[in-house]
């Protein structure tokens, strides 16, 4: 619970800061806190990925982009009243939507009964891989992983097309 409050505080900091270098550092801290929250939620694979990708690669990429553009953000030109009202209204509607959600952490929610329970029960017999998340990712949902690898491949090619200076190796 303390971690979640810290997450919210860092987000407010990111909104208010104008120096983009500080924004990058704050977003690295945000990714690290998010990874800690994920460990508390028992998602260890996801926490490792979020820590390495969010706090590692994201920070490096945004710093690289900052080097090629500029560091300070200009003060906003138009008043931010309308976006603020829209966002607060959206948040209120979403909070109203969470009144009906099942209580946190129960085992008989619809999300935990059908497919998830089947994977937990069957994966030892069918694949003999202790890490159920890897078994589901690579075997039961292999097509999604193929699509994801293709997306990463496309992003690499896209960045090459946009940023490569032809003429040097």
């Amino acid at each position, binding site marked *: 619970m303390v971690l979640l409050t810290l997450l919210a505080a860092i987000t407010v900091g990111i909104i208010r800061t104008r120096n983009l270098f500080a924004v990058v550092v704050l977003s690295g801290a945000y990714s690290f806190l998010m990874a800690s929250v994920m460990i508390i939620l028992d998602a260890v694979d996801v926490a490792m990925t*979020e820590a390495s990708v969010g706090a590692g690669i994201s920070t490096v990429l945004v710093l690289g982009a900052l080097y090629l*553009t500029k560091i300070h953000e200009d003060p*906003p030109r138009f008043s931010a009243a309308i976006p603020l009202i829209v966002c607060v209204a959206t948040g209120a509607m979403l909070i109203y939507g*969470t009144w009906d959600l099942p209580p946190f952490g129960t085992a008989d929610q619809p999300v935990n009964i059908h497919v998830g329970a089947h994977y937990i029960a069957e994966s030892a017999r069918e694949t003999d891989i*202790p890490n159920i998340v890897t078994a589901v990712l690579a075997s039961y949902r292999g097509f999604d992983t193929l699509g994801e690898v293709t997306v990463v491949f496309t992003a690499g090619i896209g960045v090459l097309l*946009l940023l490569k200076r032809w003429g040097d190796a």
Partner: protein
Amino acid sequence: MNQDVVTELADRPLLEAIATSYNYWITIFLMVSGLYIVVARSNMIKSLVGLGIFQTSVYLLYLSPGKILGGTAPILTEGAQIYSNPLPHVLILTAIVVGVATLALGLALTVRVHEAYGTIEEDEITLIVDREDYAEAGEDAETTP
């Protein structure tokens, strides 16, 4: 810790509601603030960071219902009875990697825009593009008889 808090406050309905729903509310707050950064700030790099915050709040939204109180990580070990639901973990793993791919492409586009227009503030770019459109329209009006 959440479980102890919940059983203590079970006879105080409002506090119980807050304790069990706190993660959803923080998730919604993160989602809304990410949305606010994308909509209200015109600096492109900050908008991309705000988009990242929005994406991470969606990860929290997916992972929270998958956690089972008293369960453990979904890795088969001796002595563990209850495992948390592994299905959201798989989906979010894919989502994180796709998110960083999108961020990389967005940053590459921002760099090219900066080279073309000299600025990365969206309002200034709108003004420059409008001025160019007016100039082109003016030239066309002069040259057509």
